[in-house]
């Protein structure tokens, strides 16, 4: 504390030293996320799904596309943990292998969108002038395009509907939203003294963008990544449900699509719907919890407003909480 209040540093987190458990060193940021109960729960859920995805080939008893009319439409049993589809394919295998696809897609889309958003958004904020105008124009163009119709149209017309294509398409739709947010935060950072200091020391623009601004925006960038991650899961599943995805892939959305097409629910067969949807919902929930944890961690603004409210109430002699 100094006698004059230092400016509230929105989004700046002093790096916390990691903790050591035995010989394992846990990095600071992870320790913080673990401490927050919401993000701890989220991390556990996401971690669990990652593990499942990793060991999927080992635990899926049958190839997901194996069909055996003998086993068709069977309710969950020890033999088929999640039951079978109308073609006799094992749903458990479809779900655990679908996890691989989803997580990979989410990470890829998240990665592409975040990198593009961060580089463009932060550079635009720091450089200002023409660079800012051009990038803003680009961002605005992408922002005004309605995402769902765009996705539907692209998916409908795209010959290649592979995983990578889907990731790129989703990233293309979502990057602009994040770019605007990151630009906003970078704008508030760029006139901070330590950034000006780097400038007077002679740092080049690139080193300032990557060395001074970005490292102080990690939590916001991480939040952007998680956001795009879970949206892409939902979008991918949604498109597949509509029949616009890669219908030969092993994925949650595809399983549900076939279930719907074959009117299984009408025949009382809930398992092809419920299990993939549950997997999707739980994964998304986990990601959202992690996101909440990141946001709470990096938002001292909440603290300031509470203080102001309290003092104002005091001045007027009203009862304070």
């Amino acid at each position, binding site marked *: *504390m100094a006698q004059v209040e230092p400016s509230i540093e929105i989004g700046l987190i002093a790096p916390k030293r990691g903790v050591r458990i035995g010989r394992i060193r846990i990095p600071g940021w992870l320790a913080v996320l673990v401490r927050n109960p919401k993000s701890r729960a989220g991390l556990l859920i996401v971690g669990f799904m990652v593990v499942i995805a990793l060991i999927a080939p080992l635990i899926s008893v049958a190839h997901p596309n194996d069909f055996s009319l003998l086993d068709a439409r069977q309710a969950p049993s020890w033999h088929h943990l999640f039951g079978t589809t109308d073609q006799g394919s094992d749903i458990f295998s479809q779900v655990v292998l679908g996890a691989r696809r989803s997580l990979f897609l989410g990470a890829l889309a998240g990665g592409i969108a975040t990198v593009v958003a961060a580089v463009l958004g932060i550079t635009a904020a720091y450089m200002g002038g023409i660079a800012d105008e051009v990038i803003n124009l680009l961002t605005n163009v992408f922002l005004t395009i309605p995402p769902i119709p765009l996705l539907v149209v692209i998916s409908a017309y795209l010959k290649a509907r592979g995983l990578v294509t889907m990731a790129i398409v989703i990233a293309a739709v979502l990057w602009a939203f994040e770019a605007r947010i990151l630009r906003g935060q970078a704008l508030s950072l760029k006139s901070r003294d330590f950034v000006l200091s780097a400038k007077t020391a002679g740092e080049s623009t690139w080193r300032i963008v990557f060395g001074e601004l970005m490292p102080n925006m990690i939590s916001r960038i991480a939040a952007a990544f998680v956001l795009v991650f879970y949206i892409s899961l939902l979008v991918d599943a949604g498109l597949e449900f509509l029949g616009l995805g890669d219908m030969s892939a092993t994925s949650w959305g595809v399983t549900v699509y076939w279930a719907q097409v074959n009117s299984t629910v009408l025949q009382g067969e809930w398992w092809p719907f419920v299990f993939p949807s549950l997997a999707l919902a739980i994964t998304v929930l986990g990601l959202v919890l992690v996101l909440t944890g990141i946001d709470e961690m990096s938002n001292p603004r909440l603290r300031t407003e509470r203080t102001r409210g309290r003092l104002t109430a005091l001045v*007027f002699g009203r009862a304070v909480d």
Partner: protein
Amino acid sequence: MSAVATKTLIEVQGLQVEYGRVRAVDGVDLTIDTGEILGLAGESGCGKSTVANAVMQILRPPAHIVGGSIRFQGEDLVGKSAEELRKYRWRNVSMVFQSAMNALNPVMRVGDQFVDMMRAHEHISKHHAIVRAGELLDLVGMDKRRVRAYPHELSGGMRQRVIIAMALALNPELVILDEPTTALDVVVQREILQEVEALKRDFGFAVLFITHDLSLLLEFADRIAIMYAGEIVESAPASRLAENALHPYTQGLMRSFPPLTGPRVRLTGIPGAPPELREPPSGCRFHPRCPHCVPEDAALYLRQTTERPRLREIEPGHSVACHLVEA
């Protein structure tokens, strides 16, 4: 509250305040008499604002009082109900904060904030309240018409005057000034302090003046208490402190103000920095920075590093907490 004006207005004894597990105030004794100006000086982290907040009873979690008592006109505040405290605040004791923007609602006109505040404490019509607000602004040297202004339309100095006016609105017995002019320019600061002095003469309230600027206190205060690392290390009448500061920290502080007149001398200030209150130094908290704490003087050194010095009265009105100064 008692209507009889007793001589001692505020009596703080053995006050201990903790924020979580950090003890920000560790055994503070203070008295403020009716109509006197008590200055509380210290640097960042010494706990002076915490003491003020405790007297004003506005400490909020994680801060809580873990020991000691605070009496207003003889009655202990710690046991009071929320409603009694609500009346106490502002009517008996009011506070002027360092930053007016913390106390003023940015989306309300100044006059309306007065009205709100007055009507929370008294039965008064809106019209009368606005009139009174205008009178108060006039009192602090502002144009009455400014009741219609929004805070952001006023300069820093004017905003500070507004909150001083608000602090005086209900004619309290004690006004706490917590770094009231630190964020202001020196000329504005001088104007405002002159005004506060004049108001005090007219209304007769006592003042608890908290600041890091000891030179202001030497000028304005009747008595001064010096705080360091959560404790009071010295307390004396202002004139006595100026002539004969006994505690090495006080002496160091006095040496930290470069002179504007007289010979240009090299000053030394005080080496080191105020301690982290999470783990204060053992014994005398100032000993790591004290020029008189040397291992060579073994017996004294042992005491300085292991035993906390107690506040002892050395001469009438002048107390020091220091192993060196033993009567």
